[in-house]
């Protein structure tokens, strides 16, 4: 039988094991690995774990490990080695495709149910507050309006202006081919007011304010702050949900107006600079095109989107279980769910308004 001789160093270090282990396993292919231990001075936890692992691996593949010239002290240490029983890997329950789809569907509908329950409770407490104004947490609502709405204004304006520029330039070039640049105003007005303004604002707020709501509430859950509220007989819906729900409901339509206005102004600038469209004719055309009907659509959309963001974000936050990693997962999930729901809702609105 082939015998491979290897001399061990004075000390078995992590570097030495990383460097030599796979080489030793290969060298001892089909025979005996004889480790000369005469230089070895100590057997620490790493050495014992490595030698035990080597012994068991070689044994499993029909090979043999021999330790030669081990000092009497080290032999004593070696005799003490007891390794923990190897745990049998838990058998993973295999789920069929149908079962997985079913699970996901149940989870999805469960989340929709929770969100609707939250919506009904929010509307109930909002109505209640109208009759008992003293119960309304005005100061908290104001703080949330600043935090979730006002501070989002610069980014909403910037992005809407840039999109307005792009949209106006691209559609202006196409319209110019037919000598119809005058319709740039109506195109910009309708698209910014009914589509880009509400959707763009909602997507920005979902990423910015929705994630912030989820992170804040889920951290409160993890730190037992929500439990503390319940133990003080303070309804978390009243205390945490209502100020955010109202703040989003009030801020979103205002931000949508700002978004649409900045996009339309960007269109006016593009029309004037690149397509010789006078501001007066742009505004005249705009006034004729953007009717009250379109403004109503924008208002309905922005209000619905604000409820989606607030309720999804709060629901994700309140249902978090676990620690810091759960907070991260809930925040990511909130943004994805909000954006998906906004786009879904937008598609449904298009169907309702245009067919």
């Amino acid at each position, binding site marked *: 039988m082939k015998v491979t001789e290897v001399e061990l160093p004075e000390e078995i270090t992590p570097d030495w094991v990383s460097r030599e282990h796979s080489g030793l396993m290969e060298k001892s292919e089909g025979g005996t690995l*004889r480790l000369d231990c005469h230089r070895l001075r100590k057997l620490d936890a790493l050495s014992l774990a490595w*030698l*035990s692992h080597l*012994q*068991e691996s070689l044994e499993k593949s029909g090979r*043999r*490990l*021999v*330790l*030669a*010239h*081990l000092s009497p002290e080290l*032999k004593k240490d*070696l005799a003490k*080695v*007891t*390794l*923990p*029983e*190897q745990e049998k890997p838990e058998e993973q329950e295999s789920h069929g495709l149908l079962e997985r789809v079913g699970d996901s569907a149940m989870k999805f509908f469960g989340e929709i149910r929770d969100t609707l329950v939250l919506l009904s409770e929010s509307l109930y407490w909002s109505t209640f507050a109208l009759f008992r104004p*003293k*119960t309304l947490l005005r100061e908290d609502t104001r703080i949330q309006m600043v935090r979730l709405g006002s501070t989002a204004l610069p980014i909403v304006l910037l992005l809407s202006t840039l999109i307005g520029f792009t949209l106006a330039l691209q559609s202006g070039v196409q319209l110019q081919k037919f000598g119809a640049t005058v319709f740039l105003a109506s195109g910009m007005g309708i698209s910014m007011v009914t589509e880009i303004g509400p959707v763009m604002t909602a997507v920005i707020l979902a990423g910015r304010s929705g994630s912030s709501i989820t992170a*804040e509430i889920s951290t*409160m859950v993890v*730190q*037992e*702050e929500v*439990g*503390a*509220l*319940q*133990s*003080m*007989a*303070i*309804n978390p819906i*009243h*205390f945490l949900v209502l100020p955010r729900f109202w703040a989003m409901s009030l801020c979103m339509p205002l931000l949508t107006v700002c978004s649409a206005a900045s996009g339309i102004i960007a269109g006016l600038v593009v029309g004037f600079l690149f397509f010789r469209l006078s501001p007066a004719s742009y505004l005249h055309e705009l006034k004729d095109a953007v009717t009250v009907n379109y403004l109503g659509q924008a208002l309905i959309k922005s209000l619905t989107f604000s409820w989606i963001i607030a309720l999804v974000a709060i629901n994700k936050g309140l249902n978090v279980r676990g620690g810091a990693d759960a907070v991260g997962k809930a925040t990511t999930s909130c943004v994805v769910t909000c954006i998906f729901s906004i786009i879904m809702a937008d598609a449904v609105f298009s169907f309702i308004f245009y067919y």
Partner: protein
Amino acid sequence: MNETVKLKVDHLRAGYDGHVVLEDVSMHVAAGEIRIILGASGCGKSTLLKNIIGLERPMGGTIEMLGNVVDWSEGRPTNELMRRIGVLFQGGALLSSLTVGENVALPLRIHNPGLPMDIVEELVRLKLEQVKLGHAYGKRPNELSGGMRKRAGLARAIVTDPELLFCDEPSAGLDPVTSRGLDDLLLELRDSLGITMVVVTHELDSIRTICDRMTFLSGGKVIFDGELEEAEARGPQEVKDFLNRKPGEVKHTGRTVVFNLEDG
């Protein structure tokens, strides 16, 4: 001591997601008593507390607090009942977005929206003074040490003058001096305000300072219910070992690796 029972737990069965943690737990807490719920980590102390204060719904059994059976018909215990109890959470559970003063004022502000703010402030300062945190009124929770946060949590728990106070590990993680200070404070509150207390802890020094009676949990069951002296004299061996800081027997299991040795 007034023998009126303030808290009655009968045959409580509790757990999470179908997993049973507590089985057939019963205890009666008399008025003015400081009851310690004791046991090794993972024995179900916090689960018992969460079930009593309504943060988790029991799987079975009944809980009667302040003469009212806890009613779960509306999803959680009634607000009227919850307003008569106070809870000190392990880390204080102060709302980080509010100052210490605002935290303590919160139950008053929410439940009594008509109460003038200067009266609320006066009351809050009084309670903060009582827990020796008068200087922390305008501070944020993150500016306080662990012990101060717990004391602020205690001020919030007692601001509505509860009849029953629950404390979850009040002295956990505190240095011995601060821990002793908190124990003295609990005794002072019991003596001056007559508050009945249920304290979950496994800090032996605290137990020796504040305990009137103790309920010892092991493996989700009550294995002893009585006074400390009785536990030390005639309690089950597990309780005696726990109180004497004697570790339980640790069984070493494992596999022995046999090496081939060669000399010369």
